[in-house]
């Protein structure tokens, strides 16, 4: 039973094929790391999964509900806005640039969606938010504003904010790429904890170390295609494809 099924996803920007009929099935509790050079389409693919980008062809099914599928002409057709809103709520998203709401305190950032979207009780939302802040190690920063926090702390708030909606799947789009190297550790630790709690995670990342340590499956993408996938040791330690070898060579050399 897959919690997410993306089948033959095809997307075009202007005159380039960005995603060339790629498929991905994710099991509940699985941690999938997607690696690859910039411009390989990995972020676009992730963004297609929760309709931050639309696809031109293919089918996406989340938690047993179809969000988009092909019509008779082979063109992708999305469900109505209401259905999509409900289906997307199963997915949490963490961005490279955090995208916290700067005019709201940390606590308000976490409570906003539960109150507005789920119409949660205020006290309940506050309790959940405070518990999540504790979990990401920011129990003392509930009343801070985002600009007062370091990048690593902001990203941890962003993770807590996504978790506040109780998603079934967490998507991470290069969550540590905007951070100073000394701050990536605290974010990766929170992600590791999540993985240990059996959260389903799809992580687009440059952190080969994290992929090796935490991911159940590593996918290498290049040029809009899934070039190679397998367990972390298969793909990272013993790659079969030349393109994977070349990429890992440059990444590891840079360290």
């Amino acid at each position: 039973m897959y919690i997410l099924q993306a089948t033959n996803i095809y997307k075009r920007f202007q005159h380039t094929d960005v995603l060339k009929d790629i498929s991905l099935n994710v099991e509940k509790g699985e941690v999938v790391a997607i690696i690859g050079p910039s411009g390989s389409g990995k972020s676009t693919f992730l963004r297609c999964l929760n309709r931050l980008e639309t696809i031109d062809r293919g089918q996406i099914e989340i938690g047993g509900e179809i969000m988009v599928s092909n019509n008779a002409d082979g063109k992708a057709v999305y469900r109505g806005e209401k259905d999509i809103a409900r289906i997307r709520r199963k997915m949490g998203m963490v961005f490279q640039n955090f995208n916290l709401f700067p005019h709201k305190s940390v606590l308000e950032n976490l409570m906003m969606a539960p109150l507005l979207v789920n119409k949660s009780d205020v006290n309940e939302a506050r309790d959940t938010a405070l518990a999540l802040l504790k979990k990401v190690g920011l129990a003392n920063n509930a009343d801070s504003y985002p600009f007062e926090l370091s990048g690593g702390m902001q990203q941890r708030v962003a993770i807590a904010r996504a978790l506040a909606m109780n998603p079934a799947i967490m998507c991470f789009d290069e969550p540590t790429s905007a951070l100073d190297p000394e701050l990536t550790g605290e974010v990766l630790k929170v992600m590791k904890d999540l993985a240990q709690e059996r959260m389903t995670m799809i992580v687009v990342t440059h952190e080969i170390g994290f992929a090796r340590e935490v991911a159940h499956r590593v996918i290498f993408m290049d040029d809009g295609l899934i070039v190679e996938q397998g367990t972390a040791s298969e793909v990272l330690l013993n790659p079969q494809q030349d393109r994977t070898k070349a990429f890992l060579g440059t990444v590891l050399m840079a360290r």
Partner: protein
Amino acid sequence: MEYIASLLPFMLEGTAVTLQLFFLTLVMALPLGVVFAVARLSKFKPLNVFMQFYIWVFRGTPLLLQLFFIYFGLGIIGISLDRFLAAVVAFVLNYSAYLAEIYRSGMQSIDRGQFEASDVLGLSRWQTLRHIILPQMFKRVLPPISNEVINLIKDTALVYAIGISELLRAAKIAALRDYLFVPFIVAAVFYLIMTAFIQQFFKWLESRYDYYR
């Protein structure tokens, strides 16, 4: 000094008219500008194009001419508005156009990521606008808005052209009656006092928004 004191009641009456027009315009144009800006950014083409046309017309012609159109022009086709009402209508329509463009630039300066974060959290378009975009937009547009508001208090002087006795007209009447320049100086002082208040008010507003960056 005695002469100035004798001018005051008359000048203050004019100031009252000036302030009425000023506040009525603001109360209506400030929110209407937001509505127009949202309409201007609408993906619904006809609305979008209509707003562009509207903004072009009201920014592209003198406010004085718009005042004539609404007061005299509408009279010709049988709709006669009271002078003051005509002035309010002209000012609101004109200032909404300018404010709409300021709001629009403010909204467009908000990072895409704010829309995306709202979107993935499940906020509706309206909730995103109301809770995420507009509050951040207001902080950014305060300086250009304060410009417009100061312009407005001075622009109110234009309505003396359709015979409304506001501050400047009161000064002019007194000056011609007494063959003295003093009333104009008094008027200048009055305008400066009003603009000083506006400046202070916006300074205070900006400091209130200072709690985040």
